[in-house]
């Protein structure tokens, strides 16, 4: 299977798909949901992934932080994942960046909240089932 890094095939024609099919297959086979894939499905998945990459990049760039229009940054991507429904499935892998100190503070606050809940939770009586 030809890996298409150069983007052109032997005759110099532009390829239909740039991403290497062998790599796409490896990713697909890494999950148990997929047993086997026919060649056309592989080509289409690769092509769909390219379209997705372009869609994500273009949307993120358009929504990006006003001033620095000459660059696409991680924050642009992370914001897009959070704000656009289409990309919400990416929210977990593109988390917002925060300072470690802020994160520690958040953890502490959460721990305090959890402790409060536990203290006020013992109101229930025993079994009330009728025999």
């Amino acid at each position, binding site marked *: 299977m030809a890996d298409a890094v150069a983007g052109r095939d032997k005759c110099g024609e532009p390829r239909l798909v740039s991403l290497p099919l062998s790599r796409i297959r490896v990713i697909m086979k890494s999950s148990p949901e997929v047993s086997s894939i026919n060649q*056309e499905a592989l080509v289409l998945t690769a092509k*769909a992934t390219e379209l997705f*990459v372009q869609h994500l990049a273009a949307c993120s760039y358009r929504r990006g932080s006003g001033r620095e229009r000459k660059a696409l940054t991680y924050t642009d991507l992370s914001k897009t994942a959070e704000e656009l429904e289409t990309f919400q499935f990416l929210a977990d892998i593109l988390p917002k960046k925060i300072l470690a100190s802020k994160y520690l503070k958040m953890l502490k606050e959460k721990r305090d909240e959890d402790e409060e809940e536990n203290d006020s939770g013992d109101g229930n009586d025993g079994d009330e089932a009728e025999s």
Partner: protein
Amino acid sequence: MAERPEDLNLPNAVITRIIKEALPDGVNISKEARSAISRAASVFVLANNFAMKGKRKTLNASDVLSAMEEMEFQRFVTPLKEALEAYRREQKGKKEASEQKKKDKDKKTDAEEQDKSRDEDNEEDEERLEEEEQNEEEEVDN
């Protein structure tokens, strides 16, 4: 089977090129952004797998197309259908070309006709290249 981490990622050079095609000229992509997009692409493939789960033993082209609808990426369906047609034409062309070569090979066993068939090969290559140019897929606009 142990997979190395890089095997589940797509090559940086190709990802970068695909991103650049989608953005205006001269826009830089931070390394972090590039690696994030690469991860997102892998997650996309996995999400696609999940959408196609249990459909049939061997997944085919129409499974991919319906997975796109399910994932709410309808915008990809038309360009994908075009790509599929172009791919099928390409495959058909390749098949015909290799069958033609086989025929020519048989011809060549006749010593007298050797020079003649070499000229014919060149003509056929030119015709095939012209056909491929006509069938070229257009760039996808986003």
